């Protein structure tokens, strides 16, 4: 029997060896794959196991974290949620992240290798650093002026510092409180469904993710193209454009709402916003020339990031001359984000040099040490400096003597351009009111702020809608806040 007992013991030993081999298989060889399985909640639990870093406006954090005591411990909180929602986005345990929360997630959640005290620290220790902070370029008074200016109406504001590209305000209205989406559970899913169903699209970031026909505000781009291409050499010289203007190759006539556009000069056409002159100039520059010019302002760029992706502003590449004529006055398929139009104003204000727009000033560790800094960076050479000077003068004329009078600020040089864009089937929708502008305080250096305002449902009465009436006052308030700051 002894031999059989030994054999039975040997069998038990085999069972043990099988268990050990299997344990090594699961814990060593297949572990990597199992650890990264999307159904494995451990990654998620670790992610919410520590407070998330904060997003700062100036010195003040506009976000926070609270310990819920749940399995996913820390939830995002937002101070002034709706005000900064187009900047921060949301960080939800249920729906992931958007905007800055998404673009800077590595820093905020503490996984970015930059935060580690030594290279490869995180890989070696398998540890996560405390979440770093993201300091934005937003200036609270400017942001607030824009938000209050829109006052819940559908629309957006983007403001830039022309000489640096710093985004001073990024407002979309109506907005929402991202904190509603932070956690998990039925309250969160309910809020998500409600926000997504809402007619007013509160979660749409109109400032960078929505494109609108820019209407007459686009005439600044066409004017720059005409000047740079040499189609116009003297902005004050009369052009040979009839009013109304028959679109090339068609019998359709393009009327002017403004008076005095017959053979008006470029400066006059900008001041009173002549459709005919600018459409004609666009055709004279030609499709290739216009495409080149709009590209220098950032149109048709799919890859612009601030660091959140900015929707592509469009100028069609394949058009007949009549379509080109309409496109040149910001109609047809021409669309632009409010940020794009702020960049147009910014390029003019900065002497033709377009700075790369950015929202993040610097990224710091938990205890404030800067680990990454966003410097001023050139984006495009939008136009010739001489062209910029001429356009500055024309835009100032718009505010001082033209359609943009509502944007005038005492003692400050303000240049602007109105726009009232038709849209919808047969232009049946309430027009979009645009105003783009820049402002230069007296005796100071270059213009300190460029702004674009769009108001969607500007007024119930369609006839009264105008960029100068609805959008310009908001732009003025924003510029005043920027100049004071």
């Amino acid at each position, binding site marked *: 029997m002894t*031999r*059989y*007992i*030994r054999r*039975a013991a040997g069998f038990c030993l085999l069972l043990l060896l099988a268990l050990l081999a*299997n344990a090594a298989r699961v*814990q060593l060889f*297949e572990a990597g794959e199992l*650890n990264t399985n999307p159904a*494995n909640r451990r990654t998620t639990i670790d992610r919410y196991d520590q407070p998330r870093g904060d997003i700062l406006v100036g010195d003040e954090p506009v976000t926070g974290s609270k310990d819920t005591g749940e399995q996913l411990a820390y939830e995002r909180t937002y101070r002034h949620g709706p005000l900064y929602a187009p900047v921060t986005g949301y960080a939800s345990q249920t729906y992931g992240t958007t905007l800055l929360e998404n673009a800077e997630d590595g820093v905020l959640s503490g996984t970015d290798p930059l935060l580690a005290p030594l290279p490869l620290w995180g890989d070696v220790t398998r540890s996560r650093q405390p979440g770093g902070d993201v300091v934005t370029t937003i200036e609270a008074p400017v942001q607030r002026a824009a938000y209050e200016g829109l006052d819940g109406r559908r629309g957006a504001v983007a403001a830039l510092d022309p000489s640096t590209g710093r985004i001073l305000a990024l407002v979309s209205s109506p907005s929402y409180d991202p904190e509603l989406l932070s956690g998990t559970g039925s309250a969160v899913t309910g809020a998500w469904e409600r926000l997504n169903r809402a007619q007013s699209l509160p979660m749409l970031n109109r400032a960078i993710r929505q494109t609108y026909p820019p209407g007459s505000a686009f005439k600044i781009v066409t004017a720059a193209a005409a000047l740079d291409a040499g189609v116009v050499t003297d902005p004050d010289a009369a052009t040979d454009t009839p009013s109304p203007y028959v679109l090339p190759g068609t019998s359709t006539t393009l009327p002017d709402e403004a008076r005095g556009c017959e053979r008006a000069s470029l400066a006059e056409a900008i001041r009173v916003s002549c459709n005919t002159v600018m459409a004609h100039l666009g055709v004279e520059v030609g499709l290739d020339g216009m495409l080149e010019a709009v590209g220098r302002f950032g149109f048709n760029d799919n890859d612009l990031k601030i660091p959140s992706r900015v929707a592509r502003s469009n100028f069609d590449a394949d058009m007949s001359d009549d379509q080109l004529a309409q496109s040149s006055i910001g109609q047809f398929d021409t669309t632009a984000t409010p940020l794009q139009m702020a960049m147009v104003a910014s390029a003019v204000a900065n002497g033709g040099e377009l700075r790369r727009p950015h929202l993040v000033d610097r990224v710091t560790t938990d205890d404030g040490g800067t680990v990454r800094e966003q410097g001023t960076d050139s984006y495009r050479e939008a136009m010739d400096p001489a062209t910029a000077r001429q356009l500055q003068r024309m835009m100032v004329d718009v505010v001082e003597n033209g359609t943009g009078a509502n944007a005038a600020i005492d003692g400050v040089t303000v240049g602007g351009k109105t726009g009232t864009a038709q849209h919808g089937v047969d232009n049946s929708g309430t027009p979009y009111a645009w105003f783009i502008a820049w402002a230069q305080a007296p005796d100071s250096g270059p213009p300190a702020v460029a702004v674009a305002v769009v108001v969607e449902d500007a007024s119930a009465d369609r006839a009264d809608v105008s960029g100068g009436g609805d959008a310009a006052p908001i732009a003025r308030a924003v510029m005043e806040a920027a100049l004071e700051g």
Partner: protein
Amino acid sequence: MTATTADAPPPALRLPKRRGVELSLLIGAVIVSVYGYAAVGLARSGAVPPDVAGYGAGLGLLALLAHLAVRFRAPFADPLMLPIAVLLNGLGLVLIYRLDLETPSDRAATTQLIWSTLGVAFFIAVVVLLRDHRVLQRYAYLSVATALVLMIVPIFFPAVNGAKIWIRFGGLSFQPGEFAKILLAVFFAAYLAANRNALAYTGRRIWKLQFPTGRVLGPIVAIWLLSVGVLILERDLGTSLLFFGLFVILLYVATGRTGWIAVGLLLAAAGAFAVGSFEPHVHSRVEDWLDPYATIDAGQGPSQLAQSLFAFAAGGMLGTGLGLGHSILIGFAAKSDFILATAGEELGLAGLTAIFLLYALLVARGFRAGLALRDPFGRLLSVGLASILALQVFVIAGGVMGLIPLTGMAMPFLAQGGSSVVTNWIIVALLIRVSDLARTPAPGTATAPAGEAR
């Protein structure tokens, strides 16, 4: 070596009692457990749990009482068995306490400590009252009758989580089938010890296999079929598998007929295939085993087995540390059937290997006692009890780690479950009793012929 000389008495060595070794190992086992308990608290809240002294004192007292019982009533007993049992039980309490932190409304550690106390009480009772294991041989048929009753009774109680293996009255519930394990081992050992020659040497020879006569084989097969049948009715397939393995091993050890193993494996394969194909509860377990991640692909979230594998994987080589893993994601049965996943995640492959080796050592000491004994009943009993432990560890550890289809069963000493912990203490008590006799220098053997010593 023939079967007859194999049963010759072992050599008469002057064996030291080694009770001092046992006591120092016990102290070590208690210290390790207390350290684990404190580590959980330190990792979770940065402070040693306030009840760590009480826990340590409780476990220490239990260990001391068990040691005293062994010291006075089984002085020649194997010195490793009791410390291993205390260490595993202490570690189990730590793991359950650790999981209790995740389920504040459902605390199990205190209950488990009470059951452990009861288990140690049974341990002491067995060591003190049972002076010679051979007494049990007389009660073979009483054992089997009791075992069958214990297994049948739960059929009349409502099913819990798909298995009808529980008896509940008041707030208490226990699994009578756990105790039936020991009784069946006693019966198998007694019956096979009495009839092994008839089984081995009589009967027909078909092709190369020797089959015993129906008269001898009949009762044992009948009882085995009955017990397995009952288990299938109760859907407790882990225990069913355990009984089957126990039966085959003891039959082989008693008769030495390899044919039995062939027939046994054939029967097992056929039975497993039939049950796996037609019984929906088991079929789903087999499906899970074949592809643990199927439910993830189907968008239903990870299955329990997948969660268990995630836990083991998260542990890696060294583990996350006690209290720092997320094995609670396994959900239902995390403290019982899946307790090993917590060990795997928080102690890593290193800790898991240590636990497996502790079991292996316990099983090996059981076999060792069997080898050293002279009476066939004692030998079969110790082999049976050691095999129960080995098979149980294999079935549940293999199940939760995806080696074999998962069948519900308790990890000996580690898992939450009163009946299981009491049963395992009784098993260890019997092994202690058997090993005491095996190592006691029998009067007269000192003059045994030298030729018989190996």
